[in-house]
């Protein structure tokens, strides 16, 4: 009974899950594998990675060489369908267009959501990251600690497959034996960067990404994940056997037809569907959670995008996993006499404390890497190595001028030439053209190194979303209006990134290009890194948070939010792995309450 139309939905579901990405996929997987009947509603269309992924297509086969356009912002071959910072017919409102005050909202209207194209970087939050306020007095602590989430990080790594290593560095957790796959071997630029960085006291260690560097252990992992559940073990083992390891080619952002990396569509949904417990309706745009007279959620209202008809679906439990801002929008649009300001919003905190990641980039050219022999440096599509935040002591001593850290993602090598190859070389060539230009491009190809800082933003009162009083989308659903403001903690951090990256490039004997000392200019605008979290934060106090540590809303006992909306802080670590760990933990809690008939 897997894919059902809006018309053929059953009536006896235990749980409705709104959204099919990292949070929705994980929630549904956990619930279904343990026997709950789930209806998943996805606003976008059905998507089949096995047949739709452009694996080996080259830029010359794409319009404009495949460069990004407003219709395909990450390039023609990016996996995203019907998505981007602008979605036709689905506007949102920015209160300013200014660099420092704007927030651009990325959405993907497709089965699996953003997991089809994401960067696959999968870092665990460390112990400090759950108690930031206790450490420096800023922001909010989580109502749970690393020790609560650690078993779920283990589970997610065992299920989806994450490569990496355990290095024992501060606030950079180890994984128990057997959880991680071996990291890919470094390329020449990794060695060059590591050597220079270490001379500056900056650590460089293997990266963590959700890519199968070898097949998952289909004997041991299912037993560890579903102890005592032979059916789930059998389904998962069969599914793990059908996932191929990486073939060391093709960009992960296009998705992966052989299922060698994590996408909800290739990893979470197939076993959940095989359990027979999951129904999925795509093209179902949910706009309201309905409330019964007893104060319990009764289900959701949605628009069937294929017919335009409005429809209701009901279940014992409703889980929002629609992405941080979309889940906040759903709550704010679910108004009733009991909740005139939006459902589960007695705290007034729905939509509040939106966070993105602090992002800033520098690239440079390194003579040592010029004119190397031809090398296949595709690996697992980069990120063989990275730098975790390393200045904890200096920061705590107040020496940095900003309170939270960042990690460094870097890359280089002889990657697939494309429309950017040979462009913008005047600073190195003096404007050559003709035969000399061809020689210059050969010489410089593969000699560039790229550094991206990804840092923690502290939640603030001026970064939030609310319902715009007049603008509606094409279905008549009121849309979000965004307010955004960075603090000096973020802009100074961005300036620190710029200086650090320039230092590393210079220590390599290279030349950094365009180093920005003004952090307010160096920082990428809000929403550009697409790590937005918050908007319905979890906490220990119902007066200042929206959910408890189980992602259960304080106000409505059978309404849960398992996506990034519940994050009370946004560590420098990319949020997806934590979203999945939090969702799995919440789903376990829902199962327990369902078994006890409390929901």
């Amino acid at each position, binding site marked *: 009974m897997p894919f059902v139309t809006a018309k053929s939905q059953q009536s006896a579901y235990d749980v409705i899950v709104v959204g099919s990405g990292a949070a929705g996929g994980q929630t549904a997987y956990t619930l279904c594998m343990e026997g709950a009947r789930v209806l998943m509603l996805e606003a976008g269309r059905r998507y089949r990675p096995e047949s739709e992924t452009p694996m080996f297509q080259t830029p010359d086969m794409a319009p404009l060489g495949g460069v990004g356009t407003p219709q395909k912002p990450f390039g023609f071959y990016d996996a995203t369908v019907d998505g981007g910072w602008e979605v036709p017919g689905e506007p949102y409102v920015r209160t300013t267009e200014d660099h420092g005050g704007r927030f651009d909202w990325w959405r993907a209207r497709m089965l699996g959501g953003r997991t089809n194209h994401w960067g696959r970087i999968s870092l665990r939050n460390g112990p400090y990251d759950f108690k930031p306020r206790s450490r420096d007095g800023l922001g909010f602590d989580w109502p749970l600690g690393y020790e609560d989430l650690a078993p779920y990080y283990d589970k997610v790594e065992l299920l989806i497959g994450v490569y990496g290593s355990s290095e024992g560095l501060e606030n950079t957790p180890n994984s128990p034996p057997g959880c991680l796959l071996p990291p890919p071997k470094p390329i020449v630029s990794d060695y060059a960067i590591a050597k220079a960085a270490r001379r500056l006291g900056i650590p460089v260690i293997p990266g963590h990404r959700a890519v199968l560097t070898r097949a998952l252990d289909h004997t041991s992992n299912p037993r560890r994940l579903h102890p005592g559940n032979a059916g789930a073990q059998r389904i998962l083992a069969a599914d793990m056997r059908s996932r191929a390891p990486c073939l060391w080619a093709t960009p992960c952002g296009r998705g992966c037809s052989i299922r060698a990396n994590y996408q909800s569509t290739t990893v979470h949904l197939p076993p959940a569907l095989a359990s027979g417990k999951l129904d999925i309706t795509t093209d179902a745009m949910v706009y309201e959670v309905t409330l019964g007279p007893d104060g319990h959620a009764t289900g959701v209202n949605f628009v069937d995008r294929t017919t335009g008809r409005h429809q209701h679906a009901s279940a014992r439990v409703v889980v929002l996993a629609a992405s941080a801002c979309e889940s906040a929008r759903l709550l704010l649009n679910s108004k009733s006499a009991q909740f005139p300001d939006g459902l589960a919003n007695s705290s007034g905190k729905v939509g509040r404390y939106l966070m993105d990641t602090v992002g800033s980039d520098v690239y440079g050219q390194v003579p040592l890497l010029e004119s190397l022999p031809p090398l296949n440096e595709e690996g697992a599509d980069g990120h063989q190595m990275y730098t975790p935040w390393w200045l904890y002591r200096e920061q705590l001593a107040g020496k940095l001028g900003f309170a939270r850290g960042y990690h460094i993602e870097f890359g280089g090598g002889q990657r697939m030439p494309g429309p950017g*190859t040979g462009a913008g070389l005047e600073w190195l060539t003096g404007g050559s053209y003709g035969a000399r230009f061809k020689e210059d491009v050969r010489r410089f190809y593969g000699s560039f190194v790229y550094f991206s800082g990804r840092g923690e933003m502290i939640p603030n009162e001026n970064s939030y979303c609310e319902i715009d009083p007049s603008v509606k989308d094409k279905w008549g659903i009121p849309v979000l209006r965004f307010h955004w403001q960075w603090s000096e903690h973020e802009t100074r951090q961005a300036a620190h990134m710029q200086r650090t990256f320039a230092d590393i490039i210079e220590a390599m004997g290279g030349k950094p290009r365009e180093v920005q000392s003004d952090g307010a200019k160096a920082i990428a605008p809000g929403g550009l890194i697409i790590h937005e979290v918050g908007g319905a934060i979890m906490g220990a106090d119902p007066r200042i948070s929206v959910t408890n540590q189980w992602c259960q809303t304080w106000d409505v006992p059978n309404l849960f939010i398992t996506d990034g909306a519940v994050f009370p802080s946004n560590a420098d670590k990319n949020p997806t792995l934590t979203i999945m760990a939090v969702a799995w933990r919440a789903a376990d809690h829902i199962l327990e309450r369902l078994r006890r008939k409390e929901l």
Partner: protein
Amino acid sequence: MDRRTTIKWMLAASAAWPAWQQAMAQAGHGTALLRPPAAPGYGTDPDLVTPHRRGEFWPLTLSAAQRRLAAVLSDLIIPADAHSPSASAVGVVDFIDEWVSAPYPTQQRDRPTVLEGLRWLDEEATRRFGKGFADLDAAGQAAICDTICDAARAAPERREAARFFALYRDLTAGAFYSSPAGRADLGYIGNVPLKSFEGAPPELLRRLNLS
């Protein structure tokens, strides 16, 4: 193209509205030239698996004369040599035509830069040598290109022409190195499935003093 590169393209696109276009608009000519092509683009859900032809999603708009001049300039930038063919031989003119004809903001901003730049080349050639750029001998063409090939050294009155040349060189190079011949020219050997990935060769690391 990775996220970083794409964001750079996006930021670059929003940062610099060319002064030239404003100047042209103020001068009151070239309005037909500057009008953005009307086409819906390829949409938000195009077929990614089938290779696409130039002109499939929006009509190509360069005239025969413009394409002839574009080919001459592309081949001045990337001529044939012992390693690989010239730019025009691998379809770079079609790529540039597709680019300046595209309905997207970056490409629409580039369109007047390219079209006015090509016109400037002919006007400059006529002023200095009495005939169109494409009809000049190699020395004449080089004499003009040498004055605009480096924006940092270009005379103030040729700044816009130098900006055009930089853009045109970027587009030519991007199209050329995206092609199979261009990839081979750079010795690119990726995009093939491998059984294992060995990373950096140890002997190369030793030579570079990185092991």
